[in-house]
């Protein structure tokens, strides 16, 4: 009976030492938001719909991979009437580009225990390289990935025409995210 017992034990241990497997994202405890400045007034707006695919093993962070897809029209700027504007052509043009995406290209150990992440950010059909520090911490049996990506909205053509005036709406926008994910 002994070999069988080892076999059962081994099969239980395999997932722990195996390849990094995609983690399950806890949507309730995750959020992605954009912080923009309108006439110098900082406003934070959340993207209500997004999903993240995270392949991460704390022992081998450099093998980690991340992909995040965001429904652009789900940006909640605080009022149903205003939210209808978000998907329009001069903003995200959600009819043609319903998703914005981030795909990591490299993840390396960075300063102060963070991970240095580089990747490609695609919004409104335009792709730009981004680099940002990512913090990872354990919280309630989940891994929590947090970071901020500073972008310039006009790089992606967000806010065209009369909205391209950066004295009205600053070019600098900060994308903030917190993704909680676990094995189960």
């Amino acid at each position: 009976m002994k070999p069988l017992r080892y076999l059962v034990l081994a099969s239980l241990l395999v997932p722990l030492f195996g390849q990094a497997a995609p983690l399950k994202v806890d949507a309730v405890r995750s959020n992605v938001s954009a912080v923009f400045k309108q006439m110098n007034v900082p406003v934070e707006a959340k993207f209500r719909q997004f999903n993240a695919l995270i392949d991460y093993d704390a022992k081998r962070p450099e093998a980690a991979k991340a992909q995040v897809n965001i429904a652009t029209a789900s940006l909640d700027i605080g009022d149903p009437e205003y939210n209808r504007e978000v998907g329009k052509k001069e903003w995200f043009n959600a009819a043609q580009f319903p998703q914005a995406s981030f795909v990591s290209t490299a993840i390396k150990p960075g300063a102060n225990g963070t991970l240095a992440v580089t990747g490609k950010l695609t919004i409104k059909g335009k792709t730009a390289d981004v680099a940002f520090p990512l913090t990872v911490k354990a919280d309630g049996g989940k891994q929590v990935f947090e970071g901020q990506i500073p972008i310039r909205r006009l790089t992606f053509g967000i806010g065209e025409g009369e909205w391209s005036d950066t004295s009205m709406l600053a070019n600098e926008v900060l994308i903030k995210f917190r993704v909680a994910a676990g094995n189960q």
Partner: protein
Amino acid sequence: MTAPASLQRYSPTAIAFHWLTATLIVGTFTLGLVMTDISGLTPTKLKYFSWHKWAGVTVLILSALRLLWRLRTPAPAYPSTMPAWQHYAAHGTHALLYVLMFGVPLSGYFYTLAAGVPVVYFGLFQLPLLIEPDLALKPVLKSVHYWFSMGMAAMVVMHVAAALKHLVVDRDGITQRMLPFSTHKEHQ
């Protein structure tokens, strides 16, 4: 005008406070009606919202200074010929106007904070975030701000109507006490 020369005028400070706040209140109220009438989201609308908030905060600051001044400096007395009911009506209207000079801007201030949009005075410095964004509180404060503003409009109409009555019908010199320029020699 047949204003009795015996009526004392308000002090130049009180007159300056009165007309400055009056102009700002009428302007801010009008801007509030115009900006909320713009549908959708336009840069002009956002600009008007910012101006409306700056003006509202200015009204609040001026009203605080004015109230301090008013508590230290009594208003000139009404003529003895003025009936008692007019005393009560005038005091009641003035008291409500003072309450709303604080109530309207404060409700607006908390409304915008509840909506998650802080006030950056003249685009220069951010005013205190006294409450967290609160989506449940937002519609409540919105209607409080609306009805306070409408109450203020009603009180202003009452105030102006009474001032005109004293000026044109009663001709008792009461209104002249607060006019920016005296028409003839009066006691200070």
